[in-house]
């Protein structure tokens, strides 16, 4: 696999022509958004004052207008950047993925099946709205890997019976074959209780988590500090999480710089990296040639696709041959 700097070179050299053209598009889209935005705002304000100049202090109408303004604004914004987004994904993201591994397929409008998300057992709450995009799937060294951007939400009813949506997970969800045989489930989550309440109370709280299976204390202090492990079988959890894998997962967590949830269920490893934003979307107000913007695309893709190598999933040692 190409390393990070080779991939950055690819971005700036091979994709340069496409980027230049996209950059032109971007500037057009940007100025269009500003013009439309200003007109739209002025229009909304004039309608508001024209219709309700006498009762404008009513807060309900104010809220209704603000809500309408943002919703409609978002739809208009999406429409304005639609072509530019499509072009960007086809001309930049797709070649980057192919450059990392030519066996991978990319579909910008598809997402990972919800079955994987549910079966992973990482998130316990019910999911009422599930969406995503930027679906990548294929084989690397005989290891099947799939990932995409996922946004999973839950519906909440407030006291007035109104619906509101809260995000359960937003970020990258990766599924890959795992090289050891196991039958139960092992879930590795970020350790929030122990870091907030300290070892004694936090540890006690973790062991009382009724929605999870039994708590498994790992014999790797740094890993235990970052993560908490719940599993259906004590021994199996330790069989999966060997010392070297724990070390690699820790390293992966540090590299990803975002909260990491992992689970081992069925024949697969599932990784959910919480970015809390839609990834691989084109930048509109900053140049695509900006180093920071470029690195975000390059680094994220390198991290996901590099997982097979990084976690040595392709070393089918003895159990699966």
């Amino acid at each position, binding site marked *: 696999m190409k390393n990070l700097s080779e991939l950055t070179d690819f971005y700036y050299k091979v994709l340069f022509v496409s980027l230049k053209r996209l950059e032109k598009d971007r500037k057009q889209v940007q100025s269009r958004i500003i013009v439309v935005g200003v007109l739209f705002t002025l229009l909304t304000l004039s309608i508001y004052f024209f219709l309700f100049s006498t009762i404008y202090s009513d807060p309900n109408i104010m809220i209704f207008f603000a809500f309408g303004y943002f919703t409609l604004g978002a739809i208009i914004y999406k429409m304005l950047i639609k072509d530019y987004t499509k072009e960007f994904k086809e001309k930049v993201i797709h070649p980057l993925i192919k450059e990392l591994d030519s066996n991978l397929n990319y579909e910008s409008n598809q997402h990972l099946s919800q079955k994987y998300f549910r079966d992973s057992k990482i998130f316990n709450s019910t999911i009422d709205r599930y969406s995503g995009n930027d679906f990548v799937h294929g084989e690397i060294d005989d290891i099947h890997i799939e990932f995409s951007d996922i946004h999973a939400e839950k519906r909440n009813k407030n006291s007035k019976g109104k619906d509101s949506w809260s995000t359960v997970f937003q970020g990258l969800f990766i599924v890959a074959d795992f090289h*050891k045989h196991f039958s139960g489930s092992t879930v590795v989550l970020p350790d929030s209780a122990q870091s907030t309440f300290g070892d004694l109370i936090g540890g006690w709280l973790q062991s009382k988590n009724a929605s999870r299976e039994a708590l498994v*204390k790992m*014999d790797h202090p740094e890993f235990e500090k970052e993560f908490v492990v719940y599993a259906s079988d*004590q*021994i*199996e*959890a*330790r*069989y999966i999480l*060997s010392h070297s894998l724990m070390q690699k997962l820790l390293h992966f967590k540090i590299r990803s710089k975002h909260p990491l949830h992992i689970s081992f269920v069925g024949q697969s490893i599932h990784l959910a990296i919480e970015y809390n934003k839609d990834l691989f979307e084109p930048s509109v107000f900053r140049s695509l040639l900006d180093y920071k913007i470029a690195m975000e695309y390059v680094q994220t893709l390198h991290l996901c696709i590099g997982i097979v190598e990084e976690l040595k999933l392709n070393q089918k*040692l*003895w*159990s699966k*041959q």
Partner: protein
Amino acid sequence: MSINLIIFALIVIALILMYNSLVSKKNQVHNIFASVDTQLKKRYDLIPNLVASVSKYMEHEKSLLSEVTKLRAEANKPNISDEHKIALDAKVSSALGSIMVAVENYPELKANENVMHLQGSLNEVEEQISAARRAYNQAVTDYNNAIEMFPTNFMANAMNYTTKDVFQISENERQNVNVKELFNS
């Protein structure tokens, strides 16, 4: 009067909780040791096959092979204590490790599919054993902590519970493999 009763009830509840937690910790140790034992047996079952496959070629390591066979016979004796099992496991691990290193010196063995398959099975069992050992050590640590810490130590004393040994991870296992040294030897 009623305050005394409440205090008495609280003390009884605390005693029951302590008693139950100690018993459950002891049983946890017991259960996990049973799993360790199963894995150890699996490995012992592989030994005769391995010895039979390699003994034709291995001239200089005859003593090593007979030692492994002897250890296996000892481990299969009925009614041996847990401590003894733990001690035997350490010896078998180191003897098997030496045999595996010796295999590297015999090109005929390295080309032998049966031996390679056995080596694969052994490695797999070793990983399972290592996981079971780590689980056992954690269970024993929890149990020993409960026995030695206040206030459960009084209860444990009354129940005649004593601390248990953990599996020692051998120095060889802890060290990283030195590839350079392997090539030089």
